[in-house]
């Protein structure tokens, strides 16, 4: 059965990004999807949708990423995105204390409103602006002109303790240098329980992957062009 050339089971995971404006949600996705970074990226309007595959040893996860605008005005959007989401990335800016407060609000809302069993990752972004920033990409200007060159306002310890209490995955990242970005998505992919994947529902889940293909109707698939006006007779 373990034929290495056989295609690995593949499943889609809906992932939603939440967090205060300007914490770097879109930048994280841009780094993950295109391995790219834009300084002074325009704020996201409304929302954006992107997909990216993540290859695990035993399966392939296709992330369907919903990147939402962080502005308060768009709070009405969030429920539409986290509905049926299997994973959420709640992002804060580790140089900005209010952004962690906002992140905690989102975590509470997800725990109250989103699908039971949703995998939530708490991500402190802009690690490049701190002293332990691995990328050394944080130049003096970015670092806010502080003497120490360290703009960090939220300690790893504080956020990590909170994440552990709430049962969240936790990472500090730099979308700018790319540090830890892939790791976040891989960790989420690994944390999604096999049973909540679209491939593994219901009884007889051992043939789950095959069964999904059996069940999902593909509107764009090999469709019989003359599908038959006359098939019944």
């Amino acid at each position, binding site marked *: 059965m373990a034929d290495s050339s056989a295609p690995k089971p593949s499943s889609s995971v809906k992932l939603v990004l939440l967090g205060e404006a300007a914490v770097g949600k879109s930048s994280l996705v841009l780094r*993950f*999807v*295109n391995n790219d970074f834009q300084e002074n990226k325009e704020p996201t*309007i*409304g*929302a*954006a*949708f*992107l*997909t*990216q*595959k*993540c*290859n695990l040893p035993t399966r*392939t996860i296709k992330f*369907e990423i*919903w990147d939402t605008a962080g*502005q308060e*005005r*768009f709070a*009405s*959007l969030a*429920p*539409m*995105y986290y*509905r*049926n989401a299997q994973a959420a990335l709640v992002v804060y800016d580790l140089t900005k204390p209010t952004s962690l407060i906002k992140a905690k609000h989102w975590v509470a809302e997800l725990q109250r*409103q*989103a*699908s*039971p069993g949703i995998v939530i990752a708490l991500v402190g972004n802009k690690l490049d602006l701190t002293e332990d920033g691995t990328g050394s990409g944080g130049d003096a200007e970015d670092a806010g002109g502080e003497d120490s060159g360290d703009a960090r306002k939220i300690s790893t310890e504080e956020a990590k303790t909170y994440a552990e209490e709430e049962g969240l995955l936790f990472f500090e990242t730099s979308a700018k240098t790319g540090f830890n970005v*892939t790791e976040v*998505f891989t960790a989420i992919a690994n944390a999604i329980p096999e049973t909540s994947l*679209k491939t593994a*529902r*219901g*009884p007889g889940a051992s043939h789950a992957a095959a*069964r999904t293909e*059996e*069940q*999902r*109707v*593909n*509107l*764009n*698939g090999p*469709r*019989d062009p003359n*599908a*038959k*006006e*006359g*098939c*019944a*007779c």
Partner: protein
Amino acid sequence: MESLGDTLWDVVISGTGLQQSLLALALSRSGKKILHIDPNEFYGGSEAAFSLQDAKSWVTHASNGSCGLVKSASIALPEDATGLSPSRAYSLALAPQLIHARSAILSQLVSSRAYRQVEFLAVGSFFIFSPSRDSAEASGLTRIPSTREEVFSTTAISAKEKRLLMKFLKFVLDHESSPHLETWQEHADSPLVDFLQKEFKMGGELQTYIITLTLSLDGQINTRDGLAVIRRHLSSMGVYGPGFAAIYPKWGGLSEIAQVSCRAGAVGGAVYMLGTGIETMEIAEDEVELHLTSGDNIKTRMLVRADDSPSGQTGVGRLVAVVGSPLTSLFEATVEGAPRPAVALIAFPAGSLSTAAGEESAYPVYLSVHSSETGECPVGQSVLYLTTLATGNVTGILERALDAFIHATSDSQAPQVLYRLQYEQLPGADTARAEGPIFTFPAPSPSLSFDDSVLEPVQEAWKKVMGEAAAEAEYMVFEDREGAMDDDVYE
């Protein structure tokens, strides 16, 4: 950030029901300034899907009379029932319509690329409920043969009936051309049942099969519409795979399409506000000034909304029940290579049910059974959606249908009903209205299968908003957005 009032909006869309949401999708690449609001705290309007908690607040709301087209909503939880999962494990659909493969909404979802975010499941067999005629005979469900193969293989009807049915199916597929056209045209406006009797000498049972395929709520569909609907059913068979004619969007039917459309609207830059309605409005020549319940005063060139005043005609009684059984036998693929269906449909013909007080069902009752694959309930349970015209003791009839179904599907232990939601959906205006800068969609259709006529007013509204630009723009035809199709694998 600039406030809502500083913008002159091109269109304010009020309500996130299916039609308003499809309009948002249609306008999502137009560059128009769009404010999309909904007085509800949820998306989907009359097509919403609810967790148990949402359903509860909706019922409270409806009993205050604040949902114009809903009445007599109530929830019943049997006292002895255990096994109901947490609220959010459910997604109960207000509009669990099946969508025929040949429906234009599917081509629009494909050409607009919105289909990528919807997961579709196959709708399986249609069954007919036959009551026991005497105490010795059990009531049961008979699968309706609706393809050539099924007609050949069924044991439910005689060889003579098979020939008749085959003849009729052939006729339907070719009914718009001569000589068939002439055969039915003089009966176009009379009931299809009479036509079947006169021209095909069909008896009661075959008539029932065919009327069920039309999903006619009053069983009185006329010959013209009836033939068209059956033709759609037959020609939809096999379009997206073998063995099924219709599909169903996972996670709550049309609610999912409404949400996907709103998301497309949001990606295109529309501003969304839930829990915000229109308090008052003033109409100037080419502008509407709206005072919103949020306190904002805004100006827009156009307002698009939906009608929600009851027309006074007969409504539709609905019962949504969660049962503690996967009802596996209803969800078998009947053709090799067919996807396992997630939806099955059962028809209780008129007169096949009677209440304790002896009232017979005057109209058919339809029951759509959804497996947990629809995402509407947890594994091991099923959701039942019952619908019939709201006349007489509609509650009693629906309860009887539920009861009869449960006994017909179980040999030994009857599955437990864990939850019941009941309400009446009232009909409203059936055509769209354009009055100056205000466009009003008709009330939602109560039909069991998606009706393409719902799409026309959406395109009409789109033309109004687009103005002259509508001439060059292709309706609902978009490229994939950047990034949405990126299939590179990140190792």
